[in-house]
């Protein structure tokens, strides 16, 4: 495996640090966190509660810029500390799929519309958006609840709709914060496999925060956070590039 043959980087963070508050209420949520994710790689991020996993993920997702350090997406410097290079919102819409720790749907839109809107915001026609949304929801087993409002769905169903929304625009970066917490183990496994499939088919970089140790075999690399610090911990049997 020569270095030049390795797929390009999908995600790169360099010494990303996030400090909340100031003075004696100061919290260092993330300290010099660096990570490289190549296209097609699926990364697991472990760590105890409060260790900074969500902070890291929202920084990579261009939602919550770091206090210092750099975030590069597709090799392009997007965030240099809190300074944005380009329109973050457009960047998020085109390139990033995000699945939140808590399911996060728009309450006045039906399940289908919640998925559809992400596509329509990106310029899809309503028809095409609807077709793709139904496909994804069908795969995730929630198409029968397509016309229900989120309030009428179970936690797991809501989470699957949110997953469909994150995948809708075929993002090159997929970030998932405990996506399977509300799912049974079989569904959880299926979702993890879907992420791997997305990574391979769309050459996307995928980071998944998880506590579910049973699915760890799916991941190409495992990182662990501890008190805001990032460590590449266990390496799966082979590097992602070797498995293909």
């Amino acid at each position: 495996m020569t270095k030049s043959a390795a797929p390009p980087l999908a995600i790169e963070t360099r010494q990303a640090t996030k400090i909340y508050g100031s003075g004696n209420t100061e919290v260092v949520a993330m300290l010099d966190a660096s990570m490289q994710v190549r296209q097609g790689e699926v990364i697991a991020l472990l760590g105890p509660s409060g260790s900074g996993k969500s902070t890291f993920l929202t920084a990579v997702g261009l939602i919550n810029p770091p206090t210092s350090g750099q975030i590069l997406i597709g090799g392009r410097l997007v965030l240099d500390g809190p300074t944005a290079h380009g329109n973050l919102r457009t960047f998020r819409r085109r390139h990033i799929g995000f699945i939140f720790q808590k399911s996060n749907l728009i309450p006045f839109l039906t399940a289908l519309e919640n998925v559809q809107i992400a596509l329509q915001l990106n310029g899809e026609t309503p028809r095409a958006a609807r077709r793709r949304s139904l496909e994804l929801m069908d795969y995730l087993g929630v198409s029968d609840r397509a016309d229900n409002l989120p309030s009428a769905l179970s936690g797991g169903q809501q989470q699957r709709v949110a997953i469909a929304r994150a995948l809708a625009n075929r993002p090159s970066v997929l970030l998932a914060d405990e996506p399977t917490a509300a799912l049974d183990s079989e569904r959880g496994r299926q979702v993890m496999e879907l992420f791997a499939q997305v990574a391979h088919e769309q050459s996307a970089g995928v980071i998944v925060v998880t506590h579910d140790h049973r699915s760890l075999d799916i991941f190409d690399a495992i990182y662990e956070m501890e008190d805001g610090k990032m460590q590449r911990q266990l390496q799966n049997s082979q590097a992602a590039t070797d498995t293909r």
Partner: protein
Amino acid sequence: MNLAIKDIRHNVGRFALTTVGVGMLLMVVMGMGGIYRGIIEDATLLIDRVGADLWIVQRDTRGPFAEISRVPPNLVHRALAVPGVQSAREFVYHTVQRERDGKPLRIAILGLSWPTDKGEWIPLTAGRPLAQSHFEMIADKTLGLALGEKITLGKETYTVVGTTSSMISSSGDGLGFFSVADALAIQFDVPGEAVRLERAARETRGQRRELSAKLPSLLENVVKPAAELPQIARPQVSAVMVTVAPGASSQQVTNIISAWGDVSVFSRTGQRELLLKGTVEKVKRQIGLFRVLLTLIAAVIMALILYTMTLDKIHSIALLKLIGAPNTTILGLILQQALILGTMGYGVAYVLGRQVFPNFPRRVILTDGDLLQLAAIVLAISIGSSLLGIWKALKVSPNEALS
């Protein structure tokens, strides 16, 4: 996918109530404008309907509508002698307040100069113009007198032979049309006892004069009715209305009459101005002030409603930003809701107003111009009042979707 409508549908009951509230507020604004139009219309209606070219009134008064004017009835003949005058009529106008069925009844009494004027020009809703010189009247429907009904005023009883609608004096009282003689009889009605006292007083005054001692027969006259005594002036009329002959110059006629020392003369537009500038001006400013205040209040209330509506969905807005919705989407969401609220509120105001305004004590006239103007104002406050919500929405960070 229209987010504004989806959100409204999600909270349809609350939105409907809000719309009705805003609508009722706008209805009051609309009604204020209508009342203002109604006051102007009512004030000038008589002048326009009567259709005289010139009004001859007591010197230096602004009568007969804005204040009392008294001119002798023979002024009609003087006016007729002026070259270029086609016709001249007496005009008698005063308001009486009587009791009827225990309720106060205000009638603006207008005398028609029988027989030249039988009231053919009056737009009747039922019945006919006056057909005899006495004891008939035409009543406006606001007086509550039906066709054929009889009413006693002074010593005589009058029968309603015709009815009108919306014939109202500048102070809002319904008009009653009588012959001039009847109108004067109602105005100068004196009880029998008062007549007897007056005759006794005349006799006493007469006895004190040397003349009556020389000519005792003079004293016999004191018991005669006032109308038969040349020394006592005939009851005076309010004004004389002049119609200028076609082709004659109304300015020339005016010049001749204004040279007479005892009267002033006004053109029809002059009369209108007198009323609008004098009587209506204060009402106009008062209502104008109310309109402005109510419009401001409506704007503030709408701004608060739109702001709370924005706060209610701030999480969704943050989420929309998070998944990359551009500002135009978010701006559109709030602006469209503001416009929907404004438009529907206006619709409620219009529909409700149509039902309610006819029951107002004063006439409410909705002109197309006023309706359009209010629509433009509502549009402007809808946009203006959404600014607070838009400002809040644009300020919110996508981060807030995560909390």
